[in-house]
C-alpha cells in the first residue's frame, strides 16, 4: 500500500548507479554532520569540568556607594511589602526580589551548574538555611563579606548567633530570620498532641504530616527516641528514619510536605503536623484553633542566612541590603509581617513601642525558658554518612 503517485512520476526510472550515488551522498552528509558533532562533544568530554572558584579569599571589593540593580533570591512569604521600596528609596538601588527558593536541595540542584562555572544567574544575594550555606561555602560557591561594609551586622547580630558552627567567623552567612520547628496542631481536633511521639498515636492515623526536610523531621523524631541530636550517630539517624518509614507505610503519616502542610491544616486534611513557628501565626488568622506547640522533647532551631554567591553582579548593593535589614527599625517592619525569630538585637525594643503584642509573642521573641529543650539543627557527620542518610530518607519520601 505505498503511494504510487501520478503516471508521470512513475514513468521516470533511475539507473541503479545513479541511485547508489545519491544514496551514498546522502549518507555521507549525515555521517559528516554526526562526526562533526561528536568531535565537538568529544573535545568537551576530554577535559574535566571547569574547576570551581574556591571560596576562601573570595572577598567582596567595596565600592564607595551602592548603586545599580540588586537581584535577591529568597523563600516565599519572607518579607513584608514595604521594605523593598523603602530600601530602594534609601539607597537608590533598584531591587528585583524573586521568591524562588522552595527547598534547599532543589535550589542547589538548580544553581549548581551556574555556580560551578562562577556564575549566579544574575543574583547578588541568596537566602539558604545554615547547613546549605556551609555546604555552598565548602564547594566554593560563596563570597566572604567585607566587614567594613556591614557595620550594623557586626554590631546588632544576636549574641547567641555569633559563633555558629557552620560559620564561626561570620564571614559569609548573615542570618535573615531564625525559626523553630515543632508541632502545629488543631487544638479542637487533636487536643492531646503535646509531644513528637504523640504524632505516632494511631488515634490520628492518616491525619499526621511531617516535613520533607531531612534536618527538621528526623532530629525531632530522634528527640522522641531520647537521642541527644547534637551528638547523634549515623545509627541514630537511621533508626529514626526506620521509625518514620514504619509510620508512612502503615498510613499513619498522610504526606511529607514542604510549605503546603498549611493547606492541609486549614482544610482539615491534617490535624497535627511538624511545622514551622512562623506559619502558625498566619494559620491562626485563618482558623483560631490552630496553634504552634512547643514539643515537650524540645524543638529544632535553625536560621536562614543571606549569602553572596560567586559571580554576583552587585555585591556592594548586597552588602548594603544586609546592613539595611540589620537596623532594628527596618528589621521591626519585616518582623511585624514575617513572624519568625529575629536575629537582630534591639528589634524587640522597637516593636514594644509600636506593636507590643508582637514584641511579647513567645514565638517571635522566645525567652530562653521557652526554648530550653531545643537543639540547633544538626547535620549528618561525614559526606558519606550524609549520602547514606539522604538515600534512606528519600526512599521513605518516595514510598
Amino acid at each position, binding site marked *: 500500500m505505498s503511494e504510487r503517485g501520478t503516471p*508521470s512520476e512513475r514513468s521516470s526510472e533511475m539507473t541503479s548507479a545513479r541511485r547508489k550515488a545519491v*544514496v551514498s551522498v546522502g549518507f555521507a552528509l549525515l555521517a559528516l554532520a554526526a562526526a562533526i558533532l561528536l568531535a565537538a562533544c568529544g573535545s568537551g568530554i576530554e577535559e574535566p569540568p*571547569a574547576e570551581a572558584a574556591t571560596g576562601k579569599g573570595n572577598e567582596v571589593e567595596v565600592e564607595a556607594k551602592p548603586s545599580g540593580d540588586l537581584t535577591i533570591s529568597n523563600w516565599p512569604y519572607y518579607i513584608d511589602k514595604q521594605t523593598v521600596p523603602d530600601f530602594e528609596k534609601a539607597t537608590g538601588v533598584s531591587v528585583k526580589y524573586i521568591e524562588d527558593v522552595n527547598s534547599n536541595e532543589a535550589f542547589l540542584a538548580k*544553581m549548581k*551548574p551556574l555556580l*560551578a562555572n562562577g556564575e549566579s544567574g544574575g543574583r547578588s544575594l541568596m537566602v539558604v538555611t545554615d547547613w546549605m550555606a556551609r555546604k555552598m561555602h565548602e564547594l566554593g560557591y560563596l563570597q566572604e563579606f567585607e566587614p567594613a561594609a556591614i557595620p550594623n551586622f557586626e554590631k546588632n547580630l544576636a549574641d547567641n548567633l555569633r559563633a555558629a558552627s557552620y560559620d564561626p567567623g561570620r564571614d559569609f552567612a548573615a542570618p535573615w530570620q531564625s525559626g523553630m520547628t515543632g508541632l502545629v496542631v488543631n487544638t479542637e481536633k487533636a487536643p492531646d498532641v503535646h509531644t513528637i511521639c504523640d504524632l505516632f498515636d494511631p488515634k490520628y492515623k492518616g491525619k499526621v504530616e511531617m516535613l520533607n526536610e531531612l534536618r527538621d523531621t528526623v532530629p525531632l523524631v530522634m528527640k522522641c527516641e531520647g537521642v541527644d541530636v547534637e551528638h547523634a550517630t549515623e545509627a541514630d539517624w537511621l533508626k529514626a528514619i526506620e521509625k518514620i518509614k514504619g509510620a508512612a507505610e502503615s498510613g499513619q503519616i498522610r504526606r511529607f510536605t514542604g510549605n503546603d502542610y*498549611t493547606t492541609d491544616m486549614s482544610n482539615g486534611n491534617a490535624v497535627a503536623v511538624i511545622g514551622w513557628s512562623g506559619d502558625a501565626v498566619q494559620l491562626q488568622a485563618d482558623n483560631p484553633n490552630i496553634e504552634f506547640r512547643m514539643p515537650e522533647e524540645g524543638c529544632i532551631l535553625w536560621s536562614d542566612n543571606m549569602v553572596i554567591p560567586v559571580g554576583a553582579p552587585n555585591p556592594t548593593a548586597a552588602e548594603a541590603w544586609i546592613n539595611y535589614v540589620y537596623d532594628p527599625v527596618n528589621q521591626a517592619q519585616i518582623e511585624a509581617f514575617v513572624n519568625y525569630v529575629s536575629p537582630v538585637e534591639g528589634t524587640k525594643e522597637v516593636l514594644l513601642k509600636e506593636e507590643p503584642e508582637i514584641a511579647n509573642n513567645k514565638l517571635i521573641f522566645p525567652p530562653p525558658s521557652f526554648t530550653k529543650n531545643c537543639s540547633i539543627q544538626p547535620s549528618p557527620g561525614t559526606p558519606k554518612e550524609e549520602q547514606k542518610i539522604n538515600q534512606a530518607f528519600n526512599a521513605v519520601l518516595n514510598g
Partner: protein
Amino acid sequence: MSASASAPSRAWHWLREHAVLIIGVLVVIYLLVPIAVIFFFSFNNPSGRYNFTWVGFTLSHWENVFGIPELNEALWTSIKLALLATVISTVIGTMMALALVRHQFFGRRAANFLIVIPMATPEIVMGSSLLSFFLILGNPALGFNTLLIAHIMFCISFVVVVVRSRLIGFDRHLEEAAKDLGASPFTTFRLVTLPLIMPGIFGAAMLAFALSIDDFVISNFNSGTTVTFPLYIFGAFQRGVPVEVNCIAMILFGVTVLAMVATTLQQRRAEKMASVRPDQEEEIPIVVSTVGAA
C-alpha cells in the same frame, strides 16, 4: 401487561437502548467538571494563600489578572518560547512531511521510525536524557535556549504526522493541472500546494504551540533558573497558587477554543476547494496523528 409492570420494563428498555449514549454523556461531563471548577474558583476570594475552599465571590482577581509580576514574566516566557518553537518546528516538520510523502528514497523507513519514536517515549525519559546531554557537554547555562531546543525537538514529530496526514489526502491532479499549464515546480508549490495544505500546517502549528506552552516535565528538567508558566504553577503550589492563575488559564482556554473553532471552519472551506474526501475528519490533528493509516 398492566401499566405499572411495563413502566419499569419500558424504562429499563430505554436505558439499554441508550446506555452507550448515557455513558458517553456522563464521561463528557466528567471531563468538563474540573474545567468548571477552575472557572468557578477564579472568582474565589480566599482568605489565606491557598485557593482550595470556596470562601466568597469576587471579581478582583479578574480585574487584576496581570497584577503579579512573576506570573506575568513566566507567562511571557512561555509565550515567547512557544511562538519560536512553533515557527521553527512547523517549518522543519512540514519539510520533513513533504519529503516523506512525496518522494521515494532509501532510508524512508528509518526516517519514519525516527519520527515516531519521540512520540512513544515518556516525557521523563526525554527530559532526563536531554539533561544528561547538557550536563556532559559541560554545563552550558540551562535556560531559555536549552528549553527552546527541547521544545522544538518534541514538536517536530507531531508536526510531521499532522502535515503528512493532510498531504496524503491531497489530490495530486491539481498539481498536475498546474504543471500542464506551464507552472514551474516551485510556482506550483507556492500557488497551488501550499495554500491547500495550509489548514493542515496551521493545525500542526496550533498543536505545536499547545504542546510547548503546556510542557512541564521536559521543561522542569532543562530550564535551569528560567521559569515558564507551568513551572511557575508547580513552584507556586507549595506556597499557594494565586487566583490569577485560574483566570489566566481560563483566558488561554477561551483563546484556544476560539482558535480551534476558527480553524475548523477554515478547514471545511479549504476541503471543499481541494476535493479532499469529505468524510475524513481532520479537524482533530491528534486523531489522525495517532491512527496514521489505520
